[in-house]
């Protein structure tokens, strides 16, 4: 359960819409431009000291297509909050929060890997689970479940192997 009375004064002045969800965790909907400021205030003024996860939901064919989610937790107050921002376009991008929560680095990399959402300012943003050089984003709704073989990568690896084998 989120204690909204504690949060409201801290986020005053930001364009935030507060929504309820089925599990009792409040959802703060904001814009990508104000996201970093909102998360910083939640951390510094509301005591949300732990970033549980960063992920996205693909709402294809809606526009904007992606909902990017950050879930924060306060151990001292014993509550959680979910921050949400919608992004779309050819190159969906949101600001990184790694400077606030270093532990969000792998979550952001995973989200980039799976959805192609770019986290601006994240040094070393690269694929986490899929091989480096893979061209698709598996958790997007237009990616087939049976998967797409990384043919270009295989050809590249073959070429390198042959080059090595040749004297």
């Amino acid at each position: 359960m989120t204690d909204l009375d504690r949060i409201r004064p801290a986020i005053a002045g930001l364009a935030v819409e507060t929504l309820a969800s089925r599990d009792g965790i409040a959802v703060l909907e904001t814009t990508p431009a104000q996201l970093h400021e909102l998360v910083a205030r939640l951390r510094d003024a509301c005591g949300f000291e732990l970033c549980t996860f960063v992920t996205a939901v693909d709402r294809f064919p809606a526009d904007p297509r992606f909902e990017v989610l950050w879930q924060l937790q306060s151990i001292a107050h014993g509550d959680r909050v979910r921050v949400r921002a919608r992004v779309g376009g050819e190159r969906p991008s949101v600001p990184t929060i790694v400077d606030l929560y270093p532990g969000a680095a792998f979550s952001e990399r995973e989200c980039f890997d799976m959805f192609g959402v770019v986290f601006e300012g994240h040094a070393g943003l690269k694929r986490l689970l899929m091989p480096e050089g893979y061209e698709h984003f598996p958790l997007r709704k237009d990616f087939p479940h049976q998967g797409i073989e990384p043919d270009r990568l295989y050809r590249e690896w073959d070429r390198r192997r042959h080059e090595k084998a040749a004297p």
Partner: protein
Amino acid sequence: MTTTQTFEYAPGVVDEDDPLHGELMKLNMGPQHPATHGVLRLIVTVDGETMRELEPVVGYLHRGKEKTCETLGWRKFFVHTDRLDYVQPLMNNIGYAIALEKLAGLKVPERGQDIRVLLMELSRIAAHLIYLGTTGIDLGAVTMFFFTFNEREKLYDVLDAYTGHRMNNTYVRIGGVYADVDENVQQGIERFLDEFPAKVDEFESMLTGNRIWFDRNRNVGVLSREQALAWSLTGPNLRGSGVDHDLRKDEPYCGYDGYDFEVPVGTIGDCYDRYLVRIEEMRQSTRICKQALARLQDTRGGEFLAQDRRYVLPPKSEVRSSMEELIHQFKIVTDMELPAGEAYGAIESSKGELGFYVVSDGTSHPVRCHIRAPGLMNVQAIPLLARGRLISDIVAIIGSLDFVMGEVDR
């Protein structure tokens, strides 16, 4: 308003007289290395024997579980949750079930909750035994591996008698568990629990005061309270650093608030503290199991599965005698629908906070099922603990962080 946090890493132990000092070398460890507990690859940059930089590479066991969930639907994904952290399959089942129950607004009967608590604590013991055995063998205590696997075998025999499988049980359903705990199983578990505390003392007598174990673990991989929080660590790793946080106490689920147990907390957050926390957790788990068994004795014959037929299969006797119930069973198995919305269900697994974030649009197939794997965060912390340490410490650090690659890569 924004401030950037910076962190000091453990000071290096550089041997200035080392002829190799100053010459950086890249060393590859894994993905097929016995001490990496699965298929983890580490790219270590060493200066002599000191680790300067370290990069974990994960993904070698990636099976696309989250995508699979979107394709299979809510119900059929249960069997896949077993394969996440495969040393504690029942725990994963329960975590997933709790997320779905939050979405459905379903209440589990008391007896079902007590059975779940019993299964979770037995799983925690099994997972901590694996931790103790593998970390022991990595640091030279080969005996530990055999001793802990002996105990784990007994535990698996008990689970085998109850669920019909040693591993990958898939015995949890939305709304409760598949079958009741009968008298025989209960006696088996009681026998195990009676003998187990003495075994924990035996493990401790071999390790806790052992000079080699102490020297290899004490002051190695020190993680401060602030670092542990900032790096999203949970579970024994967070508690080892002195943060008194346990979801069983702080956000009780399955009726944990009615159980009497303590949460062990470390002091300085090194590998030795994390080891002590896990040892004590095994004792506390035994206590909880005993209480759960006593409760099961009181509620014998009670409901262990919710009676909401929108989500729960009809009993076999009805399915065999009624066409409507047969169709009903078929419909639930193929396309059980959950109400539209989103929910996050989390449990305190043996590795930390295991969470499932599920989004439904009201159909039988999820829009999204994100698995918050505690193991991924534990892997992320390896460079933090290893920088500046000797290369032989990496084995102790990996062991003490305790992750299973099935869960990290999903």
